């Protein structure tokens, strides 16, 4: 190999090294603020949540899959949220409303589905859905159950699909809320 050829390769190599380390330093630059917002996000809990809303994910306790940019999420057969009872609920009780979709894919394989719910320690009557589609599950909740600042609500569907990747898909909850009695969902 000629001397000029060797010089060329040496230069190419040095440039490649510099370029890669420059790129490396760009790729690993430290995020100035790794936490969203200036500090603690102390917003009060909501009484009604849209399940796909990023602002209220802290209230989705378990059983939900990531929204991945969609305006909805899949849930497992058991899923739970925490809601703040509406004002006056400790005296008058409230109404639990969950809007959800019973997907065709689950119905096609599993048939009719029974949905039950538990608010705090109060078991609510279950309901059977014999067709796929969008529904609102509505139940009255007693005042005694809603005496605290927040209450855990757990839903259980008796049907689910288990996917190849072991994900367990049951429902698509859209919104879950505790509303004052007399205020129906719109």
């Amino acid at each position, binding site marked *: 190999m000629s001397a000029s*050829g060797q010089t*060329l*390769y040496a230069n*190419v190599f040095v440039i*490649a*090294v510099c370029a*890669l*380390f420059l*790129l*490396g*330093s*760009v*790729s*690993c630059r*430290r*995020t100035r*603020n*790794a*936490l*969203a*917002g200036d*500090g*603690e*996000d*102390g*917003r*009060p*809990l909501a009484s009604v949540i849209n399940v796909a809303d*990023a602002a209220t*994910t*802290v*209230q*989705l*306790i*378990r*059983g939900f*899959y*990531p929204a991945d940019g969609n305006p909805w999420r899949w849930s*497992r*057969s*058991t899923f*739970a949220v*925490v809601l*703040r009872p509406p004002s006056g609920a400790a005296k008058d009780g409230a109404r639990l409303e969950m809007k959800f979709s019973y997907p065709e894919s689950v119905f096609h394989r599993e048939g009719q589905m029974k949905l039950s719910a*538990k*608010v*705090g*320690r109060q078991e609510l009557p279950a309901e059977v859905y014999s067709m796929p589609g969008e529904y609102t599950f509505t139940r009255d909740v007693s005042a005694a159950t809603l005496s*605290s*600042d*927040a*209450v*855990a609500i*757990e839903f*259980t569907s008796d049907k689910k699909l288990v996917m190849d990747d*072991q*994900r367990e898909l049951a429902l698509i909850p859209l919104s879950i809320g505790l509303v004052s009695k007399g205020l129906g969902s719109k």
Partner: protein
Amino acid sequence: MKRAAYFLAAPALCIAIYWRAFFAWFTNDDFPWLALRSQIHSLHDFALALFSPQAQGTVRFLSERLYFIVMYSLFGLYAGPFRAAAFLVWFADLALASLIGTKLTRSRAAGLWAGLLWTSSYALLTPLSWASAFNQLLCALCLLTAFYARIRSLESGTGPRPVRWSVLEWTAYLLGFGALELTVMYPLIATLYTWGVAKHKDRSVIALFVPAAIFAGIHALLIPRGESDIYRAHVDSRLPATFLTYLKWTLGPSPLEDIFGPQWHVRGLAATWMVGLALAAFLLWKLRTGESTALFCVAWFLVFLAPVLPLPNHISDYYVTIPLAGMAWLGGWALVSAWRSGVFARAVAVIIAASFLAASFAEVDAGTRYFLRRSSRLRQLIRAVEQTEARHPGSVLILHGVDNELFQAGFQDNPFRLAGAQRVYMTPGTEVEVIARQDLGGSERFRIAPQDAAELIESGQARALDVSNGVPRDVTKSYLAVMEAVAAGEHRSFVDVGLARYASLLGPGWYDAENGYRWMGRASIVRLAGPEAAGERLYAAGYAAPSALASGPLPIELRVGGALIGSSILRKPDEHFVLDFALPVETVGKKELEISVTVGRTFRPPGDPRDLGIVFGTFEIR
């Protein structure tokens, strides 16, 4: 200019298709290796860090130990320099592959195409995106350097081999043992080439077997095998299927359906078959004309693939990185030969090459997106943990919104220690929703009871981060209200093990629920709150399945916190039973009791891989 293009074309293509890999962060096995540096406080520690067998009994002192220790010391948790090192080594691999391809085929174009084909493969995704697979790239560098030196040294004819090439070959070969165990196969390749392709009567090649034999002996006799079945060798009927899987991954885009859906299954398989048949036809043609070099290319593939074939439980695409070089030489040679063999052969070659490249690029694109997304999420989390620890030193961290992808990106490898966090938990219930490797300790270590979480936050000892949506948020205050509500709603004095809703109160040892019941293995754990008053008892109800009692009466013991509270013997098959035991007075008022159940034996039903003990329904304290 042509020379520069010869060396730069493959790296340029690599950057064009793998550019996202450059920005990938650390995942999984990277974290134990990164933490190695913190264990070194003396020369003795350093020697241990370099040479003590770790992971599955490996001692890759160059490609894992020294690499991570030095890079972490210099750059900390900045992944960019790790990626830069990987790309640079890979570029050197490509240059050597092109040079060797040129020597083997006596065609610069074939050598160039070999580099282009090698770097186009989806198999490079993991080595280029994941620091822990750097060993593949470094080992390739050692093997190719040694082999290139051998080719050059044999060019001197039948006379004595030039010392400098021999020194280079031996140096690269010996260093290869510090990169990857695969290096033990090099003497065989060197011999095949020397005697079979170069037709050289060099007997010194036999000396290469000595280090390989010593290395293999040390590995076989002195290094203990791990307990995990994942890396255990099985020479059995699964071998052909394992080989076919690797062959499919090598030849073409057969995994297309995994990325784009089942509708791509046929197309991926068709392209793979096309490439396979074309290479087979080329090989036969070359053999008929007496070109043993073509067979050597296949031998390279087989020889370097052979050591991983007996690992049916750890079939990994990056294992074909080094074997693939042989097929890349053959493929490059076939392409150039076809190009020079008339319009028809040229058209066929173009169609096949275009199919392979187009599908590979699509696979690489999807794969690098996945690696980047997954590792970036973990990077965001670890940076947030670092920042939280800086603001609230020594805090316990409770992570909310952890999904399976994030968990599997490295939770079980404890990346949090590198960010200064010693105790990290997930929102109660999450531990049963993620899929955890049991050989890495499962997900139990991330479990915390809602009451405990609430108390830690209330006392200022814990912070809660919501990691559901991109950049983590400190949601400690809201989370306290959430945990208090969850704790208040729990029925901790009762567990129905057959219902999914109580799964968070079950520890290890349980199988999936069936028809309202749940089988346990030899031992299992249930967690309940302690009795509210003295005199309350534990009632455990189950079913004495005939199959469980087929070998005779079945002893059963229950313990609380390790202390025996009662034992019984199940004698009557096909009957429901209720065990009724008094609880020690010191358990009264305890937030949580760990109740362990042990049976005297297990059995395995025909066709069922599970070891079954007994069936339970409910546990209750009242």
